[in-house]
């Protein structure tokens, strides 16, 4: 399409609506409207990009998106920031529309009416071949009106449910607990609807059917107008769209009427935003402790040793006590031909001692080698403490055989 010269700068009040001009371009959107669109487009895209993966966390596409964004926490932060941007944009729009209506008395052209129902019907007839041409759309077609209404409905639902999920503790001061999962259900359903509607409806009408650049350039050619808004073009051609001149006095008066509304809206929006950004500390950074019990707590009887207590012998003699004890504990090494020549199998051999001399000195346990070695500990076949004590008593009692 050729780049055609833009209209000359008009007086402020005339910028709001298209005026019949000899130039072949027709103004559709002013700078404010175009800026709102871009801001809305960006925030919407970011919200969808960071929100849908949260709705479908098991999808591999979600993995990829979270991976690109650096994790779900970052995605949530972007989601929250985009939501704030969208709310700011919506506030601007809430301020803008009444200004046009109150101050300029701009006709309401965005609200669907009976004409639009007829247009849908006419279009269906046209698609089926019962009509030669499409319905004659006015300033906004039913497709555009539908989208605008959906957007308002969607934004309101998303803002309210989003606030509820963002600030559940505050919300639940006034509502039952179920409100939060309910908000989540609505938020998710509405998100899906909005994104799919944008793809099916918006993309088709302004990107596929024809690339409608007027939302970025602000203007439409006569040819495009003829295709998209023939009734509007006709009205312009007939001179019906020339805005009446408003005296400055009237304008000032209307502006004064508008002022309280703007003040209240701004205050409310500012208040809401201030709280929304970081109103509620929903969760503290509590670290769940996991298992708190002491991990290594061995049972006292972890490695039980066979320490049978030796009962007090009936008689402290070789035959009844010492002989069997030494037989059990010592004769493995100190048997016949025992280590160091010591044989502890019989009383006489035991009293004979080792090659180096006797190991049992009657009446003198302290000087008996057997007692000395066993007292030092660490001997293979170590006697237990009370066993050794009985041996000591036996030696000190003269080491009787019977």
């Amino acid at each position: 399409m050729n780049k055609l010269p833009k209209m000359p700068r008009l007086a402020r009040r005339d910028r709001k609506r298209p005026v019949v001009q000899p130039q072949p371009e027709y103004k559709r959107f002013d700078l404010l409207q175009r800026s709102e669109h871009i801001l809305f487009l960006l925030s919407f895209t970011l919200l969808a990009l960071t929100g849908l993966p949260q709705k479908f966390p098991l999808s591999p596409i979600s993995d990829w998106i979270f991976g690109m964004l650096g994790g779900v926490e970052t995605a949530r932060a972007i989601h929250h920031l985009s939501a704030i941007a969208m709310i700011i944009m919506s506030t601007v729009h809430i301020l803008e529309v009444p200004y046009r209506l109150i101050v300029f008395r701009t006709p309401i052209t965005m609200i669907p009416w009976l004409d639009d129902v007829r247009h849908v019907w006419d279009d269906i007839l046209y698609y089926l071949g019962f009509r030669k041409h499409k319905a004659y759309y006015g300033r906004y077609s039913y497709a555009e009106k539908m989208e605008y209404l959906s957007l308002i409905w969607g934004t309101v639902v998303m803002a309210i449910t989003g606030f509820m999920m963002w600030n559940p503790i505050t919300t639940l001061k006034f509502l039952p607990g179920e409100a939060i999962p309910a908000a989540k259900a609505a938020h998710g359903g509405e998100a899906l609807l909005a994104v799919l509607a944008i793809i099916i409806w918006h993309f088709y009408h302004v990107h596929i059917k024809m690339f409608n650049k007027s939302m970025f350039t602000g203007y439409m050619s006569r040819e495009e107008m003829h295709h998209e808004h023939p009734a509007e073009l006709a009205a312009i051609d007939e001179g019906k769209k020339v805005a009446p001149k408003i005296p400055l006095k009237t304008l000032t008066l209307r502006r004064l009427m508008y002022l309280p509304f703007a003040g209240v809206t701004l205050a409310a929006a500012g208040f809401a935003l201030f709280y929304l950004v970081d109103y509620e500390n929903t969760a503290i950074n509590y670290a769940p402790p996991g298992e708190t019990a002491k991990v290594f707590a061995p049972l006292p009887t972890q490695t039980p040793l066979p320490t049978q207590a030796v009962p007090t012998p009936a008689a402290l003699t070789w035959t009844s006590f010492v002989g069997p004890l030494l037989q059990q504990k010592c004769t493995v090494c100190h048997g016949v031909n025992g280590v160091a020549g010591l044989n502890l199998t019989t009383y006489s051999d035991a009293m004979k001692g080792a090659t180096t001399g006797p190991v049992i000195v009657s009446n003198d346990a302290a000087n008996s080698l057997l007692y000395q070695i066993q007292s030092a500990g660490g001997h293979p076949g170590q006697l237990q403490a009370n066993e050794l004590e009985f041996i000591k008593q036996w030696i000190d009692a003269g080491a009787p055989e019977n």
Partner: protein
Amino acid sequence: MIRIHPFIKIAGLATLLLILGVSIHPVKAAPTSQVPTAQKALINPDDSACLACHQNPNFNITIGIQQKETLSLFVDPSKFQHSVHGEIGISCIGCHEGFKPEAGHGMVYGSHRELTLRMNTICANCHQKQSDQEKDSVHAAARAAGKLEAAICTDCHTAHEVQRLKDPKTGQLFPTTRIWIPLTCQKCHSTIYEKYRNSVHGIALTDGNNPDVPTCIDCHGVHIIEDPTTAKFRLDSPMLCAKCHTNPAIMDKYGISTQVLNTYVADFHGTTVTIFEKLSPDSVTNKPVCYDCHGVHDITNVNDPQKGLTIKQNLLKKCQRCHPNANTNFPDAWLSHYIPSPQKYPIVYYINLFYTFFIPGILLPMAVLVLMDFGRAMVNKFTKPHSKKKIFYHTSDGEDHHE
């Protein structure tokens, strides 16, 4: 110069090669996991020489630097014969390699534990797989960090009374084995055992030998016991619980929902944990996993009046750990693993129902209109190739089509 006869040369070379071959030949037979071919050679029916000393119940020595540690050298022959190794006839020296026939048998050690740790490597001769797995376990890591008391093979399996734990026919654990498992872990983890013993799982196992409930190893693994305090374990843990809790074959008997994982993943906390687990399994998150609310080892029945989570006040206490300002409405923001229905959480149910119809209710007419518009444009394009151009010229003339 002396000429060496070629025969001597060859004989010398052959001898050298033989010596070399013998010396580089691995001392141990190649490890096989279960097949007892390697052990066959170890079977020596005559353990009597060893038992001459070691069957004496009072065969103790004192060891250690200060000679304060008493070490029993007693081996109960009857118990060994009834062990899995005794049954297949492995002899003492089958395991006690490097045995020297002198007092002390050439063993050098500073403490009982040092001796056990040193002997522990012997198990790997036949049980290489299990030994390798254990090397990656939290116990091996603890030992590497100097905590020598951390469990080794014999601490759980014993040295001479090793029992058969699996039914060789089915490969499944014997029912008695399952009861032994917590008692075995209890030896070192007595406080955790107490918690488990009184949990819904522990009671069912100990008092009823219920085959459906988990023992320690069902969550912590065998041999390759993972460190349960890591961020990764935490993030993986819901799947651990889900192993049984999504299995209708186990859960239906007890009337427990198998939707617990789905419903958890679908909610705020579970979504975050799932995404973390998939994308950054080592990152720390305080978003709750199953055990933060249901208990780690002291898992209670949800209807328990003291701790059960169906009692709102009990659940609120769990919520308030992270959400200190939560009021009594707050626990209901979590759907308690229920799938919304007209009876349970009807508002959520009806909102979902609304969108089930609202979304296609809006999108289908849109799609139909779009498709018809597109279809018509295509029809126009191919049937009346010049019609578009005509209209264009028409328009440029300024002629108005408005009715």
